[in-house]
């Protein structure tokens, strides 16, 4: 009787280990064992190849060979999309982790890891893309370590992005340590969670807002409907719903393509995350609309609304802020996850539209049409290349590491570990 029990136990243990290994794909990894030539993977390969060729062109031919930038339009798609949109859409990291750890909304716990991973990849790619845009990328450490120009808002952006990238990296490492089986150091880092989260919110507040403040210096170039003393506030507030929309949007993609990676907890919590974030995003978007109106009133820019620029401004504000805010509200009330996902797409597009409007469309609005900027196909291709790297990295990391599920060794242990870690320090 006793012997039989032990054998049974052993067998089920083996099964468990096998299962967990399967999950972390140490045994059966489609990405390593054989690359399936699905249409999606073929497209990915083409994009990566083109990106590689254009990278060579960029660094051997200079910015002039691949971009449409000129003396009047020093910032193009790589700043407008890769930097501004990239940072805004990576805001899900600080939004989700502060909701869970600071505001104590534990039911979002399973959303934290994917959000941190997206944020980390987002920021890493922002810095990666900056290497293409600046003239001498090897000098990127200069502003922080060699000759800091502290009067510049770009310095604030640079310092905060640099620090926050490190914070996100540390916040991401527990997943890697769990995968590698480094229990001690994993528990130590988990113990730092609170400190890192607060530091992350401080840094995010600073650089999200100062990305908007970058344009404060050029009131003569940015259209008055977009230029405002509130630009930093607009950027910070909009980063919140950008982050939430991105968490929902990315979640819907993950459900479609990575459903098999998710565990019970993740699956059972995910609808709650979507609806909770819908509600929050709806509120924040309404607030954003409010301060936009205050901005309009303070600068008395109402008359601009009746120009073609005004139409474009209203298109952005009504179509991509008011409308998603409304859809989010309905989705949250009716507990309609699908509707929330529709709103999240609008929300993400809205942020992209807003950032591109400020950096490209409404910037230099007074220049004659033939002197305006439009990105070259190569600039667009590099941006697509950068996003593709992000998606590939996300797929790889979620295939190996416990991102969309809890590692069996640390299941339920997370909280007790947390408590333990905090009591220690």
């Amino acid at each position, binding site marked *: 009787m006793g012997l039989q029990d032990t054998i049974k136990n052993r067998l089920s243990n083996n099964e468990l280990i096998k299962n967990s290994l399967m999950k972390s794909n140490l045994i059966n990894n489609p990405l390593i064992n054989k690359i399936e030539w699905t249409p999606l993977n073929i497209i990915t390969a083409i994009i990566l190849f083109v990106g590689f060729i254009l990278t060579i062109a960029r660094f*051997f*031919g*200079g*910015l*002039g*060979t691949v971009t449409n*930038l*000129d*003396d*009047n339009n*020093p*910032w193009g798609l790589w700043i407008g999309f890769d930097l501004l949109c990239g940072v805004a859409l990576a805001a899900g990291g600080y939004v989700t982790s*502060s909701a869970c750890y*600071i*505001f*104590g909304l534990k039911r979002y716990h399973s959303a934290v890891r994917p959000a941190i991973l997206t944020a980390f990849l987002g920021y890493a790619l922002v810095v990666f893309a900056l290497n293409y*845009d*600046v*003239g*001498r*990328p090897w*000098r990127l450490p*200069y*502003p922080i370590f*060699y*000759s*800091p*120009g*502290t*009067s*510049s*808002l*770009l*310095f604030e952006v*640079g310092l905060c992005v640099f620090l926050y990238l490190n914070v996100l990296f540390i916040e991401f490492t527990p997943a890697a340590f769990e995968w590698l089986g480094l229990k001690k150091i994993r528990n130590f880092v988990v113990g730092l969670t*609170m*400190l890192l989260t*607060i530091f992350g*919110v*401080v840094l995010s*507040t*600073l650089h999200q*807002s*100062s990305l908007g*403040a*970058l*344009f*404060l*210096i*050029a*009131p*003569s*170039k940015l259209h008055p409907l977009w230029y405002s003393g509130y630009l*930093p506030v607009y950027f910070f507030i909009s980063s919140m719903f950008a982050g939430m929309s991105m968490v929902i949007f990315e979640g819907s993609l993950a459900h479609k393509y990575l459903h098999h990676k998710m565990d019970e907890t993740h699956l059972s919590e995910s609808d709650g995350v979507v609806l909770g974030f819908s509600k929050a995003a709806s509120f924040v978007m309404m607030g954003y609309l409010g301060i936009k109106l205050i901005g309009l009133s303070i600068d008395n820019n109402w008359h601009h609304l009746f120009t073609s620029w005004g139409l474009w401004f209203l298109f952005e504000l009504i179509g991509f802020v008011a409308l998603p805010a409304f859809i989010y509200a309905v989705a949250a009330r009716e507990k309609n996850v699908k509707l929330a996902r529709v709103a999240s797409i609008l929300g993400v597009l809205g942020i992209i539209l807003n950032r591109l409007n400020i950096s490209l469309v409404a910037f230099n609005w007074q220049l004659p049409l033939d002197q305006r900027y439009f990105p070259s196909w190569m600039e667009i291709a590099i941006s697509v290349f950068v996003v593709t790297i992000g998606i590939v990295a996300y797929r790889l990391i979620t295939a190996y590491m416990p991102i969309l599920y809890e590692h069996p060794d640390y299941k339920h242990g997370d909280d007790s570990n*947390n*408590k333990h*870690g*905090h*009591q220690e*320090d």
Partner: protein
Amino acid sequence: MTITRRKFLGWIGGAAAGSATIAGTLAHGASNKEFKGYPNSFGVLHDITKCIGCRKCEQACNEINTMPAPEKPFDDLSILEKERRTTSTAHTVVNKFISSVPNSSNNVEQNKNINGDASGNSIALYVKKQCNHCLEPACASACFVKAFKKDKTGAVTYDASLCVGCRYCMVACSFNIPTYEYDEPLTPRVMKCTLCLPLIQEGKLPACVQICPREALIFGERTELIKQARMRIQKHPDKYVDHIYGEHEMGGTSWLYLSPVSFSEVGMREDLGTNSAPELTAGALSAVPIVVGLWPVLLTGVYAISKRKEKIAQEELEQALAAARDEAEEITAQKLAELKKKMTKEKETAVKTEVKKVLDEAAKREKAAQEAKADASAEEEK
């Protein structure tokens, strides 16, 4: 987790130290200190009424900076027909503007005589464009590696050995002056007029001023140039608009301009305002210490509150559980007691009946015995 007092104070201390260092370095940007320019710094006064558009200054600039020769030679004036801006190989350009509303007939006469290309009621005006060498330069304020500096001579200098090539200076400049070597793969530089700083340091004039055949450019101390400009306006109120461009624009520039027509007619923006670039960004920079100082305190507070709420909820749950348990226990006890009572009662009655039975039996037996006794005695008597 529990926040100990020591830990909390530690966090606050860290935040305060952080804000102090940042505030310390950025305080200049956020202060209301006004910078009126270096005393005795130099500048150039460009009198637009005197410029004939000969492009000699462009040529001198090209030569002194050892730039590549342009496609069209400098004496080809047809190039003036299209408005140009500075480029990475031309630190200065002269543009031609046709002004339909001359300031006075006097002016038209003069221009006709000089240029010979004024037709009807319109006159041609020539304006030189180059770095204005702001007193508080937007480029220097925007540069995150301090590659731009305002020299005591008045020149805004650029140090290519620091430049990362972010081109924020070009975004920041209201006059659209800095240019970039986009075709340079390894060592691209921002290019702009240097005010011929090396020449000034040698006690010489900037190349463009030196060569100007009509004294349309005058070099001197900025304060002196402003006096000179005022005198000209006062002397010839019919010839100049009453405005010295650059005296206050963007906080003041080292280059100053006099014009016979409003400056917007000669391609110079009059809506730039008098705020210098640092003033535009001071507010945003001053928010840094507030965020660094307040956020950690607030967030720790929020965390503590949510943690405490959780704790209280837990306690309440435990209390409720305990209460429920107590109640259940009480009810069970009561039920038990009742049952016991019932049982005892039943037992009692059982005992009673049993006793009664026994007693009855005993009584019966006694009776029987007595009867038997009586029978026996009766028999004995018999």
